[in-house]
């Protein structure tokens, strides 16, 4: 019991948190773009499932890992386009259409799995790829630089998303469309084009999030593989106040607490398992409540835009 928090334990926990946070990051960063432009896509989990299956299927049949990621991205993109078509072009109620997309992904991914594979199998996914030199750094090396390629990708995505949203004209347009679509429209920014772009991008990243589960972290596919992970990702977007860096922080805290609760159980601390598994969720709710006081969502979030002509 006295060696509960040795250095190597902490390193293990942090490495574990980095892995666990990967699918959340892809999905939540993608969702951040959509929500910043005013579209709430609740279909993330369904898109992740379709991405997870597509990637798994390619790797199962051909062993081609890159092809798996590409197909997952494409399938995610198409589902993002579907969501954009329903919520932007048809201006359907966003919450309901997102749930429709989720249920479609949940059902369709299982149907395809039943018809094309039909039993639980494992594949060889992305191997751990230590980064030369960096992986030798004490403490940080094993935590950050001994992961697989899709894990690295998720963390590289964060500064890119930050840069696009805060330092480019495109980012400015996205935020303008999410805050005041009428004004943006008056200034010649196409609201629907921006929203199509962000929702498709979000779909693509959700597809990759699914692939990170099925061919990098778990290397398996079964019915409802994501188990609601996409909904946690949406909560993390709120948690992070629609800012990529804070979404990263939120994902890491949630994942670290999850890794910690597993560890606490494994070493046999006398805490009931029901309480332990609840902690990451309780923490998320608490932070959400606090952050609700602190930041304001994009003004036009979940409001369809219809031009007055």
């Amino acid at each position, binding site marked *: 019991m006295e060696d509960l928090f040795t250095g190597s334990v902490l390193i*293990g926990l942090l490495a574990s948190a980095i892995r666990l946070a990967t699918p959340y990051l892809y999905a939540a960063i993608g969702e951040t773009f959509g929500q910043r432009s005013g579209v709430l896509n609740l279909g993330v989990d369904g898109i992740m499932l379709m991405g997870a299956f597509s990637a798994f299927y390619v790797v199962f049949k051909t062993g081609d890992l890159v092809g798996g990621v590409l197909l997952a991205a494409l399938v995610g993109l198409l589902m993002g386009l579907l969501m954009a078509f329903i919520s932007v072009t*048809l201006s359907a109620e966003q919450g309901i259409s997102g749930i429709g997309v989720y249920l479609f992904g949940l059902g369709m991914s299982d149907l395809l799995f039943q018809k094309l594979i039909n039993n639980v199998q494992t594949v060889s996914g992305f191997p751990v790829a230590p980064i030369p030199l960096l992986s030798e750094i004490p403490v940080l090396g094993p935590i950050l630089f001994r992961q697989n390629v899709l894990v690295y990708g998720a963390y590289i995505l964060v500064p890119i998303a930050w840069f696009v949203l805060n330092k480019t004209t495109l980012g400015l347009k996205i935020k303008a469309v999410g805050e005041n679509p009428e004004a943006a429209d008056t200034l010649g920014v196409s609201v629907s084009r921006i929203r199509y772009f962000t929702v498709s991008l979000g779909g693509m990243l959700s597809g990759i999030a699914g692939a990170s589960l099925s061919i990098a972290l*778990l290397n398996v596919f079964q019915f409802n593989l*994501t*188990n609601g992970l996409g909904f946690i990702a949406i909560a993390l977007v709120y948690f992070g106040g629609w800012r990529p860096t804070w979404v990263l922080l939120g994902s890491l805290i949630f994942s670290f607490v999850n890794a910690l609760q*597993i560890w606490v*159980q494994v070493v046999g601390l006398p805490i009931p398992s029901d309480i332990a598994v609840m902690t990451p969720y309780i923490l998320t709710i608490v932070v959400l409540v606090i952050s609700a006081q602190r930041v304001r969502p994009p003004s036009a979030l979940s409001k369809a835009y219809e031009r007055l002509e």
Partner: protein
Amino acid sequence: MKKFGKLVVLLVLVAILSTACGAAEPAAPAASTGPFKVAVVTPSAINDLAFSQSMYDALLAIQAEMGAENFEFVVSDSMFVVDDASSAIRDYASQDYNLIVAHGSQYGAALQEIAPDFPGVSFAWGTAGDTFNLPNVFAYEAFSQEGGYVSGVLAAALNKSGVIGVVGPVEVGDAKLYVDGFVAGVNATNADITVNVNYTGSFSDVALASEAAQTHIGAGADVMTGSAQMVVGAVGVAKEKGVLWFGTQADQASLAPDIVVACQIYDWAVVLRDIVSLVNEGTLGGKAYALSLENEGLKMVYNPGFDLPADVKALGDAAAKGIVDGTVTIGVGGK
């Protein structure tokens, strides 16, 4: 026009969805005399290599015994929403089925409500020991601690690191019995071994099961086990790291032929066979069953691809024999 467009999209979505989530097999045409007809509702997929698959495999076995012309069955799987399951059970009851199996302890309350409305139809549910004193309800459960104990004995004999890891789902029902039986088996064989147990709080969280396996291995485990459909995540990690694995509910050797040592298999055919003959004689319920090593509803299946030393296997066989003849006391669930 816009409203019409939305409606069309919604309808198309609903249509696609209903095909995707439909019954795994088409319903057989109704007939008053003829084959024995069974409808089954399961919470996860029938190919989950765990709880639901164990029932599906038993149905196939009974069908093979009785012949497809005498035994027909339909399955609605992945009914993890109890409300959906409950309407499926009611639908099946109002059609022409002889027996409706609600394969999940979470369906109990629904069944308690539905069964009295259909006194001429027989229902079975599990895992549970309670027939609600209803004349048309059978209950079935599994003494999964028995195979858990045998696996624990084998695991202790194969263990070298002094640490064994258990990836549990939720601390209830046959999952808890299995885990407790496993721990008892390890302790009875070598009390110096530390058995680390965690529960993920879910039957289906593959990602958490996988991370839990990583944590167990990080803590020194060289043998692991676990229960429920989420364990495929843990088996994947065990395979990658070369850690031995014991399965339960269904044969998981196909997932990782090199590291799966043995699996405890649930053979519900033992229960179904008896229920079918009782229903045919006019008894529609009132009996509770339990799978055990003694009635061969529980079986230890050794992975032929794993080279298990004969002396270790002998230990397992001795434990199984002891449980059957009562000389071994597990100390879990009245066994």
